[in-house]
């Protein structure tokens, strides 16, 4: 007998889940970002150049994002908790293995493949669970969880440097393995939750578990297409904002200030927009379109900022543009995950998250090399930022195809009514996950 499922809780244990999601973010993306500190030591020991060592983190990121659907598929079958716990062990093993590396290949395998797969098992299920635990405050909760990587890299960067100075890179990797093992207790905190709209039976086949059937829904297809385009441009400032600031004439500290401005705007916006979006004044797809467009415009502004006069200047225009970019990008991030329940139903959120991560990764693999290539061809980053800004803008344009993205003539729903999360914008089949032939309707985006 199936007990009667209860709705999402919007508090209580949900906040513990948010904390777990925060830690998961910190121990995956945060560690990945700080790993670059160890690269000079790798390069020196293995006698390779900087580019080859940088492949370690590029590989880890690629594996993490590309294998995300696998993580979400597994958690659909067995629940988020065991998958995240296993993912934590896998990541930790990857670090321990790489601590004994005798060639760069071992690092690629240990950190890139093994740790990357562990992270793939961890991110989408954890984020999906956070979404499931909230409805009224979902965007805020997801935004809070997503600030984990920023906060973590602030803490982890000096800590990693300390480890490297005291234990060398082998000891540092070993201890990082122990630190990332904390993903397992985070997974233990992800108590399973039953919600209306969950598929009643586990998916029959692995392919079904991947959730590829979601692509049949037009709204989800639109979202993934737009997100893939946005992904091309979204990650470029992570890599190229600092060099761009240096190119524009700022000194080392000025460039660091620009990056910090973007990071702080990012963090602040995640929380602010989270709170704002949850008020329900504006439908989430519309907010997504708006902030996507603002991010694109911000990138264009960053690219078009004129050369700073002297090196000691604090680069006012670039700082403002970077801050604007940070604010809009930070607002965009939780929205792209929170719009999923409306489009696919809360029951498919974990799978949808995995698929969105995959699409983002495709863009992320394309963007920075393209930007670097444009920089080498044209001599500065203007063309790169303009290109990635236009990618983001075109992605946001595609978002206009989402339901409720354009203002409609129907009266707006009163704030206070719960946000749509049963995929009401498209009728969701009550029974098994794959049920072809249900009518597509209500894509009424015009008057």
């Amino acid at each position, binding site marked *: 007998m*199936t007990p009667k499922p209860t*709705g999402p809780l919007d508090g209580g244990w949900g906040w513990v889940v948010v904390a777990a999601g925060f830690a998961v973010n910190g121990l995956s993306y945060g560690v990945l970002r700080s790993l670059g500190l160890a690269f000079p030591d790798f390069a020196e020991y293995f006698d390779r150049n900087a580019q080859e060592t940088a492949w370690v983190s590029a590989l880890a990121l690629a594996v993490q994002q590309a294998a995300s659907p696998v993580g979400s598929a597994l958690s659909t079958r*067995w629940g988020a908790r065991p998958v995240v*716990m296993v993912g934590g062990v896998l990541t930790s093993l990857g670090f321990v293995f790489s601590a004994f590396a005798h060639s760069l290949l071992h690092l690629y395998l240990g950190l890139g493949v093994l740790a990357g797969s562990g992270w793939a098992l961890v991110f989408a299920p954890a984020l999906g669970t956070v979404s499931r635990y909230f409805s009224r405050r979902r965007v805020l909760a997801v935004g809070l969880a997503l600030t984990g990587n920023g906060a973590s890299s602030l803490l982890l960067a000096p800590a990693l440097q300390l480890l490297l100075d005291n234990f060398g890179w*082998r000891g540092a990797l070993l201890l990082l393995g122990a630190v990332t093992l904390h993903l397992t207790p985070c997974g*233990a905190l992800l108590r399973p939750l039953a919600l209306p709209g969950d598929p*009643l039976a*586990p998916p029959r086949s692995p392919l079904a578990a991947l959730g590829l059937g979601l692509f049949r829904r037009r709204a989800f297809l639109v979202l993934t297409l737009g997100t893939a385009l946005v992904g091309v441009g979204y990650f470029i400032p992570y890599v190229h904002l600092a060099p761009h600031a240096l190119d524009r004439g700022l000194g080392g500290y000025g460039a660091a200030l620009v990056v910090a401005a973007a990071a702080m705007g990012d963090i602040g916006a995640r929380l602010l927009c989270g709170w704002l979006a949850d008020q329900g004044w504006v439908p989430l797809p519309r907010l997504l379109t708006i902030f996507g467009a603002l991010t694109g415009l911000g990138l264009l502004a960053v690219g078009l900022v004129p050369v700073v006069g002297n090196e000691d200047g604090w680069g006012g225009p670039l700082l403002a543009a970077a801050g604007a970019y940070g604010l809009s990008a930070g607002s965009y991030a939780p929205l792209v995950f929170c719009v999923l329940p409306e489009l696919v139903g809360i029951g498919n959120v974990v799978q949808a998250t995995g698929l969105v991560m995959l699409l983002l990764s495709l863009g992320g693999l394309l963007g920075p090399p393209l930007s670097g290539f444009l920089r080498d061809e044209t001599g500065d980053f203007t063309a790169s930022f303009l290109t990635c800004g236009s990618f983001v803008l075109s992605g946001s344009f595609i978002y206009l195809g989402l339901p409720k993205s354009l203002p409609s003539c129907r009266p707006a729903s009163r704030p206070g009514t*719960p946000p749509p999360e049963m995929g009401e914008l498209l009728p969701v089949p009550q029974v098994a996950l794959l049920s072809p032939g249900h009518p597509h309707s209500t894509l009424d985006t015009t008057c």
Partner: protein
Amino acid sequence: MRALQGLRGPRAPALPLFLLCFLAAVRRSLEDGLSTAAPFTSLPVQEEITTKYSNLSSESHNISVTAAPYTSLPVQEEMMTKYSNLSLESHNISMTAMPMKENNKGNQICVDRGIMLQRNVTLEQSNMPVEKNITLERPSNVELTCQFTTSGDLNSVNVTWKKGDKLLEDNYLVNATGSILYTQYRVAVIGSKQMGSYSCFFGEKKQHRGTFNLKVPEINGKNKPLITYVGDSVVLMCKCQDCLPLNWTWYGVNGSVQVPIGVPVNDKYVISGKHANETRLKITQLSEDDQGTYWCHAIFELGESEGHVELVVLSYLVPLKAFCAIVAEVVLLVTAILLFEMYTQKKKKPSGDGKEFEQGEQMKLDDSNGIENSGPRHRKNESVGQ
């Protein structure tokens, strides 16, 4: 002004010959139409000398060279080619002295030697020694020029040159024009004996001083200690930015004595280097005895230079202890979390379904079968569902 009066005293024969060559060259340029009255047309003279003496590039820093009135000396052609394979390097120091004015305080130097007395000026403080570091790698001819500006009487300024503490009495020239006093010292640096500090002094009490420090290039080792583990292998590297030493040697330190490494060639130490400006010492099978500072010596024609690298060898137990501690903590956390959940669920105990206990004990379950009851919360309105 000091007039050159020919060879004086026991000197290395090379230098005066060298000067003769220089004089001869200058004379020829004078015959070419440069007048001594117009003091310096430095560049044409310079270039002539440069082309005579070097087939390598030479450095010039807007130097003015002049010849004081000489007694004519025989020109000896062969001497001019003696050091023709050496490059020429020129270095310049300028010093300025301002006459003290009535209401000037601070670092003003009174040089006016006539009637005015030095007043209220601490000459020692205002006498900031001007130094220039010159890096020499290969034997070369070095030309050091000091340039002194003052509005006082130049003729009464005494000029001396010193190497270290030894007074140099020969091989330098002095000339003055307008308010600038020039003095130049030339030396052919062919060995480590000619390296060191050369100083020019202006004034009776030698209160103005310019110093040229001739040094061999510096070697960069590593500032932070290299941390390795027992049984591992490591590569220590020393590098020189723009120089090419003749040879490199490595020394380990035993107590306070430097012991050469790699002399009996064995497997443990391998010295190699990809380019001439770097050297690598590979040590395999590290043990804790291999800890300490390693010195790399670069040997140049003009001397030796050294850098150092510090090596620390740790045993694996050091991080392993921390690792085990953290893993134990994680296991504790996980157990605590799961026990806590079992405990709260037992307390709540909804229906007599055995499934709750199963849920607490098993970790594998389906989302749709899970039961959630963790205390009172505002529940979502079930009318939301369809």
